[in-house]
């Protein structure tokens, strides 16, 4: 592979680190690409001098945001090596890949007639032509294929051919593959020529810090930013190592950090004070990693409202004080609802850990106030247009519950608390993915009346075994004997752990008609609602569209969601769920 056919122009020079390039440029590169010195050296040595024959293909892999693309493009552009780089995501057909490369050969005139090419054979031929017409024969031409894993989905011959481009064209071509997955996953079929594999390791915490320091805003001193980043990483490094995301989060929260300094409350050196100020915010931000549900502007606004609320309400240092269940025994009606201002009620609920259990609860409380329920309208807290005290809910949930369905708050507090009773039981079924961070409490979607029933029926059909239908929905289904109950206790691995099961439409409608109180005709509107639930992805169709006589569906919503939906129609869904009986 690395047979160095010494070409006439090369002569062994002692500056082995620069490979014939300007050493200033190489130094510049090292400066620009932080913490990647070994990889740069490796790549430069593989590339050799401009005219050296390089390995036919190099495969670079490493996690997201380890600087693969950046490093390669920097090297190529700084050293001004002839190169074409393609992002394979864009090339949904091989034709685009070929044409893009051919039309973007370095030195090609923009106005020149574009080349068309739709197979590998032509590509090789045209590439040869192109290279010779651009006088690139005596230099290595680099073809960079970013997101190379997409190449596997293209025609079967593309990957092998690209790997041996040098051999096929007889030119000095080096193909660089950049990917996030290991080389072994590319190997299928035959005719593979193994590339030189270069691994880009993850950045360590120190390296991350070093790189993130580059983001330091010009208005702030670097020391301050360094302190901030080290604090920041101490919180975030455990959950996220994606440099891109870390940089985003760091910049988002930095203004908050410097706030005391700007206000003159603390000096830049006063790390302790600054830490105490930023800690709760970072913890909260921790829950929004990767979500990008709020833009920077919105986030800032949220933080601002948070501050004003903290000043208004009783100050608590941490957003989630330890859960204090004993404050009011679950099951009793909370005295808070009637005697305390609403924002206190909200806080109590939050402290009781309720929003973590029922995701829909907190926004509901928050939204009732403007609508004015009779009991609460006269309370002092309720007159605020934006209810403070539901700290994480309001900024993200402008979704108002129309007055029709706003549940009276007393009714609401009841189930909330009883939910904490169930929590032990529910936690068992809580899949890791369904945990909702408090910032994005899933809002119960406002649905038409019958759609709610349909959704509940679908949920029941999805999570209850067919045999239990008779027991739940027939008027005088026999009682279940104690023994069979015991047996069931054991075998009940929980349908909630197994996930939703598909059910035919007939069963859905049968359950629907048995849970709905009033008599309604099976009109086309009902059927079209099923379809619209599918289009909202609350239900999923599990059979092909063509099967129209007995379509099968699956319910895709979570238990929390269905509970909040069922609550708005006054239906106790837990009583009908096989897992909870």
């Amino acid at each position: 592979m690395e047979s160095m056919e010494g070409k006439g122009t090369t002569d062994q020079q002692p500056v082995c680190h620069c490979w014939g390039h300007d050493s200033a440029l190489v130094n510049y590169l090292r400066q620009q690409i932080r913490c990647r010195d070994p990889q740069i050296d490796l790549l430069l040595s593989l590339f050799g001098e401009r005219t050296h024959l390089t390995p036919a293909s190099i495969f670079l892999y490493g996690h997201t945001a380890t600087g693969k693309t950046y490093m390669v493009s920097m090297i190529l552009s700084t050293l001004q090596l002839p190169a074409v780089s393609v992002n394979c995501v864009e090339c949904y057909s091989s034709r685009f890949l070929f044409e893009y490369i051919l039309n973007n050969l370095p030195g090609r005139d923009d106005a020149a007639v574009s080349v068309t090419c739709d197979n590998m054979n032509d590509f090789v031929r045209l590439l040869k032509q192109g290279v010779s017409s651009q006088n690139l024969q005596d230099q290595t031409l680099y073809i960079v294929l970013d997101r190379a894993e997409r190449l596997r989905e293209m025609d079967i011959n593309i990957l092998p051919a690209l790997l041996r481009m040098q051999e096929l064209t007889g030119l000095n071509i080096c193909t660089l593959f950049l990917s996030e997955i290991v080389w072994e996953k590319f190997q299928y079929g035959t005719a593979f020529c193994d590339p030189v594999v270069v691994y880009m390791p993850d950045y360590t915490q120190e390296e991350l810090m070093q790189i993130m320091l580059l983001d330091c805003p010009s208005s702030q001193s670097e020391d301050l930013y360094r302190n901030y980043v080290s604090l920041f990483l101490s919180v975030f490094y455990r959950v996220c190592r994606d440099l891109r995301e870390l940089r985003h989060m760091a910049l988002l929260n930095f203004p908050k950090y410097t706030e005391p300094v700007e206000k003159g409350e603390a000096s830049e050196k006063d790390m302790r004070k600054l830490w105490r100020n930023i800690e709760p915010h970072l913890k909260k931000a921790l829950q929004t990693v990767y979500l990008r549900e709020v833009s920077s502007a919105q986030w800032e606004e949220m933080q601002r409202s948070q501050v004003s609320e903290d000043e208004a309400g009783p100050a608590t240092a941490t957003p989630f004080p330890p859960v204090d269940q004993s404050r009011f025994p679950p099951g009793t009606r909370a005295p808070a609802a009637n005697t305390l201002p609403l924002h206190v009620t909200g806080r109590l609920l939050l402290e009781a850990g309720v929003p973590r259990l029922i995701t829909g609860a907190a926004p509901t409380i928050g939204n009732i106030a403007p609508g004015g329920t009779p009991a609460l309208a006269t309370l002092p807290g309720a007159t605020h247009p934006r209810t403070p005290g539901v700290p994480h809910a309001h900024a993200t949930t402008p979704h108002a519950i129309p007055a029709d369905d706003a549940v009276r708050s007393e009714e609401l507090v009841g189930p909330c608390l009883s939910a904490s009773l169930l929590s032990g039981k529910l936690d068992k079924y809580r899949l890791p993915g369904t945990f909702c961070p408090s910032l994005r409490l899933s809002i119960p979607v406002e649905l038409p009346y019958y759609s709610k029933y349909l959704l509940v029926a679908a949920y029941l059909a999805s999570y209850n075994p067919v045999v239990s239908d008779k027991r739940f929905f027939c008027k005088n289904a026999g009682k279940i004997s104690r023994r069979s109950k015991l047996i069931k206790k054991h075998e009940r691995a929980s349908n909630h752990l197994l996930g939703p099961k598909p059910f035919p439409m007939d069963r859905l409608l049968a359950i629907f008609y048995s849970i709905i109180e009033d008599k309604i005709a099976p009109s086309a509107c009902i059927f079209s609602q099923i379809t619209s639930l599918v289009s909202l992805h609350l239900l999923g169709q599990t059979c092909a569209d063509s099967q129209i006589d007995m379509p099968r569906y699956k319910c895709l919503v979570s238990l929390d969601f269905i509970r909040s939906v069922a609550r708005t129609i006054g239906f106790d869904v837990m009583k009908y769920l096989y897992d909870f009986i």
Partner: protein
Amino acid sequence: MDTAESVSRGCFAYKGKKKIARAEDYLSDKKHDESMSVRYKVFQKMWEDIDAEIQMLRSDLNSKVFEDLLQFICKNHRETQRAGSVKEVPTAALMTGVNTPDHAIMFSNLASILKERVTSLVATLRAKDCSSVKALLTKLLHQLLSLNELKPRVEKGQRLLFPLFAARVEEHHENSTAQEENQSTEMETSPRGEDASVEDHGQSPRKSPKKKRRASPGDSPVIAVILEDTENFPPNVLQDFVVTCSNYLDRLPIVLVFGIATSVTTVHRLLPTAVSSLLCMEKFQAPPSTHYFSLLIDKILMTNKFPFKLGPRVFQLLLDMFLCHDFSVINFTMAFQFCLLDHYTTNPLAHLCCPRDMIHRMVKNLSAQEVEQMHRLPSVMRHIEQLPGKDLADILESEDCFKKLIQTLLEENFTCQYRSNTILRVLHTLTAHLPTHPLGKQLREQYVTSLEDDITETEGFRRAFDLLAMTAGDEFVSLVTQCLNLVQDSDDNKMEEFSSALQVFLYRLEHLDEEKQEEKKEPAVEKDDLKLQRTDLRSLQKRLQEMGKKKKKLTPYEKVRGELLYFFKENVRRYVCPAKAVVLYEILSYDDDSTVRHHLNAAPRSAIHLALSNPAHYLHCDCCNVEGGSISPSMPDVCIAYKLHLESGQLINLYDWLQAFVSIVTVEEQENKKKGSKPDKLLQARFIQAVSELQFLGFIKPTKRKTDHVARLTWGGC
């Protein structure tokens, strides 16, 4: 029989002209030709007015969120560039609510506003067009490049790739039009390819992307891409699209608008973290459709702008359809339009239900026959009867007098409506906050009640006033002030009276001490009684009972409150009357709920059941008209088979079924024939056909559980 008519008969298909349904075609062959066209004209006028009003409402409603969106789209590109470090595609998540039928119009409005005010580069994508990345990009670029300036090249440039597009857009904004022409001519001369058969691979000259020349994003207009139903996009397509967008962000200032019907979490379902971290989302909440709906009822139905009214039953039906089925305002508007149309087609006197300025003309042109019809209207008869004798005679004798009466009645209707609506709103202000909402939480509920019946007679009304009689002072004052605000700026004299009376009451409520002076007569008598000292429980109880019996002395506040409530009650009684009590209600309101239900709330299953169990309903024949569940041999085969299958259980034995079928079909011949003989082939064939039709309709399916059996798919007997 004329044998020479034709030697061979054939059926020749030919394409006719495309027929466009015109209103005239439907109107011409009616009996009352003239009146019909008049009615049609009035209908058109009415609908135009109403529609214009609805459009206005909609644009007002969405203006706020659109304004925010526009601002976001305008400013955002500059801002993200400033932040610099991380490339994020600015994305607006527009939460639209679940009323999917309404979205199309909302997004088209948004697109047109964007085009008008921000950028000409706006594309709207729907999930159904975007099953693959290729389809998505094709659709996108077609929309973006179909601008006039770029047009000549689009037709040729069928191959669509993002970089190409980037280059084009860039180029377009850098170069002058002159250069543009130059290039396009140059294109035409370039060689055309050979594989033009494949559409996507159609040969085309392509500009190579100009990578080096970067237009700073500041000067080129933003490219707004609207994804109408983000939920339905295939995840991989959306992911690739977002990645591509972010790759080109430095050259193309792209802003995405995700229309999301449910919640933002959808985005995370669709996009993995690696992709979603390329977005910078901001959430925008479109006003919920229920809000729009209330506004519509408040501003369109509960005004006196339009004489046409929905009757209580139809109104309730439309309300139910909205709340229970789809939350779609568009569907509601269409239903309303249907009601209007049906009213004007079926009611021969409907043209009197017209805007105010047309009344005079309409009444003048009434024909003698129509006047006769008017006389016979129950509400008119009732009204005339209670007129004083002299007037009565005049009206009965002279047509002119009668016409004059009708005209005044029609004109008065507007003011009546105005008053009744105002009073209803006042009533709503008073009662909306009451616990348990005796008159409904929403104005519309109260409106329905008032249409149906005399609202003062209802249980809810009584309870509401009982509760009102217990309101505390300051709350009551604030309520009355709100009411006053509602009626204050009215120009109707009756309402002015009402408001001035309210003002007096309000004054009295605020200056209760003045009230007090009038009645300081015997407060001291009972005072000493209250000073109880030691008593046993018995006597205390007794005393308390006695005290309870005595009429409690009213405080001045309670007195004023009582008077005021009485005043309210009287006014409600005077001005708010149910739909049927209005004179000429037959002309002014539409209450045919069965027609509306029939047309708008289709029930396919019950229709099929009806057709199969009672074919006479659709066939209009006498022979099949039978009582109840009995089966007559004259019915179609499939009906007989259907009715027989209703009598069976889960599994149906085909042979038994056939026997039963045969015995019914051949009921006449059966007397002569012997039983048990093998059914004739023709009958078998007929039976099998009927059975397969039933299978096609989804009533039965073949089963493997038992041989010669079919499984029934429906339950319940006949």
